[in-house]
């Protein structure tokens, strides 16, 4: 018998932990001291990466937000909470534009999340059934998700363009005489942004739901059927409760993703009309990386971040309360 299988059997029999415990009781100090730092050593690679790429930038960002910070100028005067206070001063141009962009972000979340939560669920329910070619359809619905935002931007720009786009052309041939300004007027810009986003990302949520659906115990369905439950009852009393943790994940992640929307409006509408579709991230990027007013951009992103943390926490609370009920 080789050494490794020996260890394996011991562990399986539960003998190893017992002997370790006994040994430490005897005062095996060297072994114990080594054990104490081992978990941290295992953690270290992750912690270093987390520290360098997440923690430090986050803390550094707070530091930046307290200054009038231009990366390329030698003077970065301390302004304390000035950047934050300015965002709550209704007479300041920055505040007006920032809250305008927050409104755009809020509207997009409001319009897109319901579709992004419900449509993929319906799709997952269908794709979970057994029918010929279902793997093909699973791939088809997931396919757009693998495209980069630049690709979908160019694609839909060409399709939706009011005067030279394909969609208006075909609508015209179907007898729609009015030219629809998909990219330049409300409410069409929202239809476009939400529609494109749903088409682009529904595959991801659908796959998550599918995994969730397959984790539900099939005996529950059998029991429900024995009790004479209808399809609707099955869905309401078995499927939905079974999906609760998955739903929480999907709702939270979809809200966060929608609140971080940038590329679609940057590429498709350019923020038009009247900056109505200039989202918070787009405005932050403009302020920080085009005008290099990084202190102010950092302050804005912290406010957005706090809001999102609040919304996610609320989300968790709501789901938990429902669970208790």
């Amino acid at each position, binding site marked *: 018998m080789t050494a490794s299988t020996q260890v394996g059997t011991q562990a399986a029999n539960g003998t190893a932990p017992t002997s370790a415990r006994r040994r430490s009781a005897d005062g095996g100090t060297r072994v114990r001291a080594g054990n104490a730092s081992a978990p941290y050593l295992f953690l270290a690679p992750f912690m270093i990466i987390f520290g360098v790429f997440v923690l430090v930038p986050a803390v550094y960002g707070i530091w930046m937000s307290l200054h009038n910070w231009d990366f390329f100028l030698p003077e970065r005067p301390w302004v304390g909470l000035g950047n934050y206070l300015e965002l709550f001063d209704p007479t300041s141009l920055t505040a007006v534009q920032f809250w305008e962009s927050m409104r755009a972000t809020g509207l997009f979340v409001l319009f897109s999340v319901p579709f992004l939560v419900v449509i993929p669920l319906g799709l997952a329910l269908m794709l979970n059934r057994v029918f010929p070619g279902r793997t093909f359809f699973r791939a088809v619905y997931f396919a757009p998700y693998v495209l980069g935002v630049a690709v979908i931007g160019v694609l839909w720009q060409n399709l939706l363009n009011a005067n030279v786009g394909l969609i208006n052309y075909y609508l015209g041939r179907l007898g729609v005489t009015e030219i629809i300004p998909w990219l330049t007027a409300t409410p069409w810009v929202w239809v476009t942004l939400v529609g494109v986003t749903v088409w682009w990302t529904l595959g991801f949520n659908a796959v998550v739901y599918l995994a969730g659906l397959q984790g539900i115990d099939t005996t529950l369905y059998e029991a429900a059927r024995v009790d004479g439950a209808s399809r609707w009852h099955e869905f309401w009393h078995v499927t939905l409760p079974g999906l609760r943790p998955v739903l929480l994940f999907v709702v939270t992640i979809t809200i966060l993703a929608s609140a971080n929307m940038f590329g679609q409006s940057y590429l498709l509408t350019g923020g038009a009309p009247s900056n109505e579709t200039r989202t918070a991230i787009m405005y932050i990027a403009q302020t920080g990386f085009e*005008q290099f007013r990084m202190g102010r951009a950092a302050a804005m992103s912290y406010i957005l971040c706090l809001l999102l943390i609040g919304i996610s926490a609320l989300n968790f609370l709501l789901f938990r309360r429902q669970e208790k009920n």
Partner: protein
Amino acid sequence: MPPLPTPPTRRAFLGLGAAAVTASALVACSPPDLSPVALPDVGEGYDGPPLTLKFWNGLTGGDGAIMRELLLQFRDEHPNITIEMFAMPWPSFYQKFPSAVVSGLAPDIGLMHNFHVATNAARGVIVPLDEAADRIGLSEANFSETVWRSGIVNGRRYSIPLDVWPDSLFYNRRVLENAGLDPDDPPRDRASYEETLEILAEQGIAGHWLPAIDPQGVGRGFDSLQWQFGGELYDEEGTRALFNGPEGREALEWQLERILSDQSKRNVSGGDANVAFKNDLNAFLWGGPGALINDLGSVEDLDWGVVPLPLIGEQPASFSGSHQFVIMRQRAFDPDRMRAAFTFLSWISENSIAWAGAGPIPARRDVVESPEFAELPAQSSIAEALPDVRFYPLIPGIFDVQSTILYPALSDVLLLNADPQEALDGAAEQANHLLEENRQKYAEAMS
């Protein structure tokens, strides 16, 4: 028995790690050194060991291919200097190269739009080139005046102009001919321009598609027009916006009128007018020859011509840009590399006739006056407008004011969502705010 060493608590471990990394990051991100630089005193002409210069720009289109060809030709004539060119989209170029300079990875040479020179001069990421220009023998006498002066910020020269591309009137001969108009006589003044558009509109052709979305396309027509009406975008110190004066309003109302009278389509976004022009759907296109001559020239079967913008206002004027060479700030300047860079700048300036093939008009007077240039029909036709080209004022941060404040306001009006005067007044107020902020921000760097 010695006491057991206590393992670090989780909290202490996290804290320690974070502190160490923060400290190192803060040291790494210390402010850049923008003290005055003294370039090594070198002449032109490099005969040292082979070296490679890094050249960054935003020439990602057909113009990039022509620049690469020029670089190969330069290498044939100067075997010991290789120029490695990195082209990236202009927006990323303006974001990336300052970071590269601050972190000590600066390229040797860059090419940028003249309206970004002042901003980057104030940042200290490019260096003054007065002496360099003298040494390689370039002076105002070699260039058309406006173009040469557009490289001077605060009395110091920061860039060497390569070319200039005034917005011009591109006309589609086939569309004009089919409408019963003379394809060889495009309208050059307000009355004939409006008349032509009206004749086209009667036949259901929107002759001049006015872009209403896309920062660059929307605003440049307005800029040209308000200059033609005698207006100014900003006062001379760059502290106040003036575009909401009567000239600005007149310019914007003229544009709006084109849309309301169906001489332009509604809701035209960025590239639409260009696509329509290539498909014989509209007759006129206002745009820069730098990109368009090359672009339209590549469309088979398209019958077009180009002349300077029509005179809609009282005096000829057209928005123009210019590509200009800059030398990036280095941690330490190597005399050999400087000499090689100067050799290149001097050479490409002399040989800029080849660059004209990409579309723009070379900045050098002797090149524009050369017989080779006269053989380029499109380029030489718009060179007529050279005395009337207008640039954005040379104020740090001016492009942000134009692209984030003025152009969206114009867009509002051209999408029929706002009244011209109200939109311009609102934009002027916002622009004054940003101009003042910019003035404070760059004040020290510019003093």
